[in-house]
Structure formats: C-alpha cells, structure tokens
C-alpha cells in the first residue's frame, strides 16, 4: 500500500474526528467545510511526521485542533476551497433538528472560553481521559484536572446567569 492509499484509509477510518473538531470550533456550515478541508490538507502535509509514537487518533486530534485555532484567525478573509459534495448537518437521517439546536446551545456556552479551555473542554466532551487530554494539549495531567474544574465553574455560572 503506498503513502496516499495509507493516508486515505487513515482519514476514512477517522473522519469523525475531523468533522467533530471542525464542528466544535466553527459556527457555520461554510466555515466547517473550510476547516475540514484545511485539516485534511495539513494532515497530508504532516503524514510523514506521524511516527506512531502516539495513536493515529491522538495525532489527528493534535493536527486538527492546531488547524482550527489558526482558521479562526483567517476566517474573516474570503478564500476559495473545493466545495464539499454534501454538507455535514443537512442529512436528516443522521443529524436531527434537535441535535442542531443542542449544538447551537453548546456553541453559545463555549464561545467565551479561551482557546486552551475550549480545546480541553472538547476533549473532555469526547470522553478522553486526563492522560489523553494532557498528551494532546501538552499540559500536565494535574493541570488538566484543575483547568477542567475551573471550566465547569465558568460554564455553571454562565448557565445560571442565562436561566
């Protein structure tokens, strides 16, 4: 199997990660599609650097989250990308209107978090262990616990304020 075939297989097996990161960090379908493409392009560029010292999914989260941060900076500029054939959230059999509504509420709650907290929260929602979160973000395991408690407090007070 050549490099491109291995890459395509890896992407197809883990495409959920790419879409989830793109969904978490963006607020519109166009932005999401843009980020998906940019993540795949960056993964391809960095594919040689994947040395299997971490799992494929950990490596994909790292690159995808790195790309998402910088996308926020560039999103105000108009860029041309390849149109994705089908949108992520317009498939009635998989993502319901109720899901979309919940997603909007979630995005509303996390929008004021700084990027470090946002990344930690996304990995927490993804049921990652403190060890995995530490590995992906680069902060210590203890720090992950402390930060998560603070994030929960921040979100709780925000939720209470909006009720």
């Amino acid at each position, binding site marked *: 199997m050549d490099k*491109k075939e291995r*890459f*395509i297989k890896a*992407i*197809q097996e883990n*495409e*959920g990660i790419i*879409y*989830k990161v793109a*969904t978490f960090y963006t607020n519109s379908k166009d932005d999401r599609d843009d980020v998906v*493409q*940019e993540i*795949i*392009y*960056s993964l*391809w*560029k*960095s594919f040689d*650097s994947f040395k299997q010292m971490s799992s494929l999914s950990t490596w994909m989260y*790292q*690159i995808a*989250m*790195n*790309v998402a*941060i*910088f996308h926020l*900076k*560039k999103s105000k*500029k*108009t*860029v*041309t*990308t*390849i149109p*994705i*054939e089908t949108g*992520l959230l317009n*498939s009635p059999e998989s*993502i319901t209107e109720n*899901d979309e509504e*919940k*997603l909007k*509420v*979630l995005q509303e*709650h996390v929008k004021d978090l*700084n*990027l*470090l907290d946002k*990344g930690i929260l996304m990995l*927490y*929602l993804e*049921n990652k262990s403190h060890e995995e979160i530490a590995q*992906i*973000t*680069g*902060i210590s395991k203890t720090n992950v616990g402390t930060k998560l408690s603070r994030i*929960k407090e921040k*979100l*709780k007070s925000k*939720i209470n304020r909006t009720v």
Partner: protein
Amino acid sequence: MELDELKSAWETLSIKMDKQQKLNSKLIEQMTNLKYKNRLNAIARPEFTSGIICFIMAVVLILNFGTFNTLLLQIFGGLSVLFLIVLPVLSFKSIQGLQTINMSVPTYKNTLKEFAKQKIRFQKLQKLNIFLSFRFMIVFAPVSVKLLAGKDISQNITLWLTVLPASVIVLFFVSRWVLRHYNNALQKAEELLTEIES
C-alpha cells in the same frame, strides 16, 4: 442546560459523526492536491497586489521628484515615498507569519503559544499601519495634486487651516476607536499567553 446535558448532547452528535462516511477517496485526494495548496496564497494575493501598486507609485514619485519645486513639497514627496515602501512591508510582515505555520508541532499548547504571539505581533503591526496611513494621507495630498494637476497646494494657508484641523479631529476619533479595538484583542491574546506559560 446543565454541563451534563451539554455532554450528552455532544455525545449524541459525536456518535453520529463517528458513524458517517462522507469522505470518499476521490474527495480526500482532491483536498490534498495543489489546487487547495494555494489557499493561503488567495489571502496574500490582494496584499501583494496593493503592495506592487504602492511600489509603482513610489517609483513614479522618485522619477518625478524634480517637479516638486518647493522645500515643503520635497519633504512631503520624500515622506510619501517612505510611506509607500513602509506600509506594504508592514502588511506583508503581518501575513508572513501565517504562511510559515507548522501544523505538525507536537502539542496544542505549543500551537496556542505561537498563535498568541502571532496575534500580538499582528495587532501591533495593524495599529502602526493605521496610524501611518493617516499621516500618509496628509503628506500625499499636496504631492498628488502637484503631480496630477501641476498645482502647489502645500503653500495654501486657508487649505491647511481647514484640512489640517479637520484631519486631526478625524484622526483623534478614529485612533480612539482603533486603540480600543486593538487593545482589547491584544489584552485577550496576552492573557492567553500568560495562562499557557503559567
């Protein structure tokens, strides 16, 4: 909505996104090809074009420097050339960082650090760019009128008595707005950097 509800909402979506199969081989291959590689160039292109225009204008001013027959016009002409070179250089520098980003750095923390540093640099350069642009507008007006219409308006006292105070007032309000906008963004980036490094 409580945090647990947020988590369960995300889990529902997460399961569905994990199951989906939207990316076929052809689409993935398309996304890795050269066509997409030019994405950042699309951002840089307008900056590059305006930079070229500025440089051409600078050359035109230098070639016609002999037309500026008073000391004031010569000073304004010289300053205009300087601005026409410095402003695009500042613009290029502010986007240069974006094009050298290495996404395969080992951790999110390192990327965030780089992001925050770049953001601080970008905001500072943009602030400087806006202030210089205003000064450029003031010195370039008499130079361009002299070049295009052959008239020297630099000695026109009435014009300066009206244009200059009006420019100062506009500059004051715009600067205040710009400072507030960029200082907020700068503060956020600096806070993020402090938190990462703590």
